[in-house]
């Protein structure tokens, strides 16, 4: 049980921790590139909103074909944050990104940048740059011309553009390819050029529209680390769109989970994973065991819950649900264990299937009430003996593993 409670330690202010843990060399490099960032000189201003969406609705088409891509969405993206919009395709995440970039305009509501309403500014007047899914590099220009394009359009003097281009090439480690055509470089290199091009004008916010989806797995892992490094070094707010939950969990400071034009939950990766507020969030991120349980009593936001097996546990009750007679709870497979001899099982059933994954093993247990429950156990040398399918088994988990969903 110790491992579980450790995993549940509340991740207070991950953002500030990460910033202060930032090596000095990074900061020095960033300062030479862009000058010291406001957040560090301003101390307390860390939590200031870089981008804010206020009651944003975006509708496409009209009449009976009218589709709401975003339905009254409000969200605050903080300065210096790696913020991820996560959701399945069609959930509205790219629409929200396009509204921030200015490629589309909201039907209702407003988009604020550093507290200023930019809803009706065209994209070329917004200090916001985008890394496109298809990279959208200009095929008739060299790598250097691509990177310098934004600064050139801003009317910066030639010498300044040239210097910024060199700095950017160094930042993304592409110095040798400066004069290549963009068609003569690999997909991973194009990705770096697209990043450098968007970062060169030092935008207030960098928007990334599933930029890693075209890369193969190994390159994607490399670029995830690279992106994180760039965000640290430049101190620019990143808004990252993805449908890949793993990508979101490993890279983000905070995640907004979206579905059908709504933001369902905003939080740190740990909050999203360990404390999903809704069924969709729990299902979309990671593997889950969902169970209907009976509410015995509620007091001070804590509920006494009874499983179908008769075992009872306590858990936090979401606000406004104190009247519920039964609720859905989620237990992550790795937060549960097969009971050893002498443990008091919470649930019991029959082992149906054992799947060996190398690092861990999944046990599929058919509970007595008919529901399938998955337990994931880390494989360790000299660990417990292999269980055989068909055997009776009990399942144990701590009450910390139980999360009540809002329905």
């Amino acid at each position, binding site marked *: 049980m110790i491992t579980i409670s450790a995993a549940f330690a509340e991740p207070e202010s991950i953002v500030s921790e990460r910033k202060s843990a930032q090596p000095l060399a990074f900061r020095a490099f960033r300062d030479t590139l862009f000058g010291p960032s406001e957040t560090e000189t301003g101390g307390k201003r860390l939590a200031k909103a870089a981008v804010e969406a206020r009651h944003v609705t975006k509708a496409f088409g009209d009449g009976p074909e009218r589709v709401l891509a975003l339905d009254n969405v409000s969200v605050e993206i903080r300065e210096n944050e790696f913020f991820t919009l996560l959701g399945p395709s069609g959930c509205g995440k790219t629409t929200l990104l396009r509204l921030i*970039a*200015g*490629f589309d305009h909201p039907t209702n509501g407003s988009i604020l940048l550093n507290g200023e309403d930019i809803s009706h500014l*065209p*994209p*070329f*007047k917004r200090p*916001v*740059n*985008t890394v*496109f899914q*298809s990279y*959208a590099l*200009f*095929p*008739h220009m060299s790598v250097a011309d691509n990177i310098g*394009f*934004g600064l050139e*359009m*801003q009317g910066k003097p030639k010498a300044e553009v040239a210097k910024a281009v060199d700095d950017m090439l160094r930042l993304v480690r592409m110095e040798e390819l400066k004069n290549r055509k963009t068609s003569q470089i690999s997909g991973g290199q194009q990705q770096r050029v697209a990043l450098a*091009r*968007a970062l060169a*004008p030092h935008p207030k916010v960098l928007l990334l529209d599933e930029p890693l989806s075209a890369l193969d797995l190994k390159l994607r892992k490399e670029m995830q680390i690279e992106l994180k490094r760039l965000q640290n070094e430049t101190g620019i707010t990143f808004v990252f769109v993805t449908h890949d939950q793993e990508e979101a969990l490993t890279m983000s400071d905070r995640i907004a989970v979206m579905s059908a034009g709504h933001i369902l939950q905003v939080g740190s990766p740990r909050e999203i994973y360990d404390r999903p507020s809704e069924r969709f969030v729990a299902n979309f991120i990671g593997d889950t065991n969902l169970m209907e349980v009976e509410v015995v009593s509620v007091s001070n936001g804590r509920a006494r819950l009874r499983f179908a097996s008769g075992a009872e546990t306590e858990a936090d009750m979401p606000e406004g649900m104190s009247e519920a007679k039964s609720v859905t709870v989620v237990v992550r497979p790795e937060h549960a264990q097969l009971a050893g001899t002498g443990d008091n099982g919470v649930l019991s059933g029959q082992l149906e299937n054992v799947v060996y994954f190398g690092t861990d093993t999944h046990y599929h247990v058919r509970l007595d009430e008919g529901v399938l429950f998955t337990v994931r156990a880390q494989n360790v040398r000299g660990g417990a003996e292999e269980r055989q399918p068909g055997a009776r088994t009990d399942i144990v988990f701590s009450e910390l593993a139980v999360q009540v969903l809002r329905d």
Partner: protein
Amino acid sequence: MAESVQPPGPDKRIRPFSVKRQTGFTTVAIICFVALYAPILTLVVFSFNAGESIANWGGFSWRWYEAAWANEQVKEVSVRSLVIASCASAIATGLATMAALGTTRTRPYRGLTAVFVVINQPLMVPEIVSAVALLIFFAMIKIATGYTGLGYLIAAHTAFCIPFAYLPIRARLESMDLTLETAAADLYATPWKAFRRVTLPLLWPGILAGAMLAFVISLDDVVITEFVKSAGQDTLPTYMLGQLRRNVTPEMNAISTAFLALSIGLVTIFFFLSRRRK
């Protein structure tokens, strides 16, 4: 196990379907090529005829090229043809570029199909109908204004050149990645700058193709020119038609061959220009 392993490389017995191996393919192909190129080849060969005939070979000579070069009338109509073709193709290409932008870089609107039809009208209306219509219409203007210059021919050629310039430009625009223009706007380029720095450079091959096509079509026109031209406004094709009505000498072959060489030259130049752009 070892003996069942297939030798590497494709199995020679199973060949993918190929139209080349169908019975009669070679015969049909040869007939087509002969039908296409035999007349042109004959024309070119007899342009070098030393004799007066366009059917009996009398030895090799450049005399008809010299005769054509010395013919002041040929020079005059050739220059006129080139002037008209240059002006008409330039104007038509400019208009066609705007039309192509106007029909691809907007949200689809009501009546877009009608716009396509209007732009491509010269491809659908029989040329003789356009010719008669232009003749009557320009006659009215002539009476009203008294102007009798080359403007009528240029205007007429511009009109029927537009769809030929429009089609390749539109094709190019439609195949272009729209996110490139979005990216330019994202990188602080105003709409005009985005057009100048991103859209236009990528559109060049299409514009060039459109201009070449319009130029060749204008150079080649007989029907509309014949109807619209005033006295003394013969172009090369109408002049040649006039000459053929009288006596036919290999001089016509020589002029035609030069004309052919010019067309092939233009297409070749375009081909290499568009290749270099890629």
